[in-house]
């Protein structure tokens, strides 16, 4: 155990505690702002702790990515009007899921395109890219519906159930196959592609008014993708933050659907298997 390893682990532990305290501060409006500033400090600590890892030898792409991300993130944080908040959150789920998915693909590719991936790690990587890829397109669809460049009404077509069912079964089948046979690159990349299709088909039949519930559920998926990343690369702070996020998104979508006096299942699957004209609001 080198000093740099201990420093990294200590920064991760501090970050995890600060995240939990930050979320707890949100139970009271007075303490919320300070608590979230502490959570931001935790994030900064986790970043510094990661940058001192001995695996990291080349800082050029990191600095470029941090600079570019900050340049895009600053206006997204400061100038987006509060009324555009739901779509703002939806699009940022897309960025988060994109990061998790790309890390998963990079990991798979680096480990000999699956040749050196143990079965359990493959299960984690599979969850990571699956939740990640369906969140990417799902969030983009939600963003599109709220921003109104995609139709806000539920989109249904004939044979939709069959198509969705086939895509879903295919994805699960590929995932199971990969866990037994990690060295099948085509199956991995096809699974990522099908995951993107699942994201579209999940959100397409849901109306614009129900989008907040969907966004919250996608938040949960993005969190689970982060947690799976943590399992795949053996990183506890990812697991903790991902689990917090997953729990939060799930609870919020339940609470919101209850507030709308509808069941969770009704919102998600209400438009499935119904004739298209029924869903016109």
């Amino acid at each position, binding site marked *: 155990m080198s000093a740099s390893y201990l420093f990294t682990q200590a920064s991760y532990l501090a970050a995890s505690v600060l*995240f*939990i305290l930050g*979320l707890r501060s*949100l*139970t009271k*409006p*007075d303490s*919320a*702002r300070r608590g*979230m500033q502490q*959570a*931001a400090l935790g*994030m900064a600590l*986790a*970043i510094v702790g990661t*940058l001192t890892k001995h*695996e*990291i030898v080349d800082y050029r*792409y*990191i600095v470029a*990515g941090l600079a570019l*991300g*900050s340049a895009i*993130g*600053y206006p*997204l*944080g*400061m100038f*987006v009007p509060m009324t555009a*908040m739901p779509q703002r*959150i939806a699009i*940022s789920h897309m*960025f*988060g899921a994109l*990061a*998790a998915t*790309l*890390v998963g693909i*990079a*990991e798979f590719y*680096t480990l000999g395109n699956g040749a050196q991936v143990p*079965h359990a790690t493959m299960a984690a990587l599979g969850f990571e890219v699956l939740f990640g890829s369906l969140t990417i397109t799902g969030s983009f669809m939600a963003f599109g519906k709220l921003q109104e460049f995609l139709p806000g009404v539920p989109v249904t077509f004939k044979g939709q159930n069959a198509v969705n069912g086939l895509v879903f079964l295919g994805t699960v089948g590929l995932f199971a196959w990969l866990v037994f046979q990690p060295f099948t690159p085509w199956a991995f990349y096809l699974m990522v592609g099908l995951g993107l299709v699942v994201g579209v088909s999940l959100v397409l039949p849901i109306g614009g008014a129900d989008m907040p519930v969907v*966004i919250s559920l996608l*938040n949960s998926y*993005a969190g689970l*993708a982060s947690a799976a990343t*943590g399992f795949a690369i*053996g990183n506890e702070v*990812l*697991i*903790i933050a*991902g*689990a*917090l*996020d*997953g*729990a*939060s998104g799930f*609870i*919020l979508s339940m609470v919101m659907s209850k507030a709308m006096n509808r069941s969770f299942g009704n919102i998600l699957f209400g438009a499935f298997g119904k004739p298209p004209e029924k869903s016109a609001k």
Partner: protein
Amino acid sequence: MHGTSLIELYVFVLAGFVGFQVITKVPALLHTPLMSATNAISAISLVGSLVAAGSDQNRVATWLGFVAVTAATINVVGGFLITDRMLKMFRHAEKPKAKEVKA
């Protein structure tokens, strides 16, 4: 696979439990900030992205890592800033109300 993965499963389950306990206590008033706060926290995937972008394994991993770092940084910066902006509004809205109650 590394031998610590069972411990990681414990960590995941317990953290999920903590999250459940904490978040069920958040009042409905603060649900929107909570959403954007958890969104900012989920940008912790930046940690994985940094390792992919900086460990110089191969060109594919480096470039994917670069894009991932960019995407995650957007969420870190944008997510915490917008949460702070929202909570600032809440505090201003809260103060006059508190005075009214006292008077």
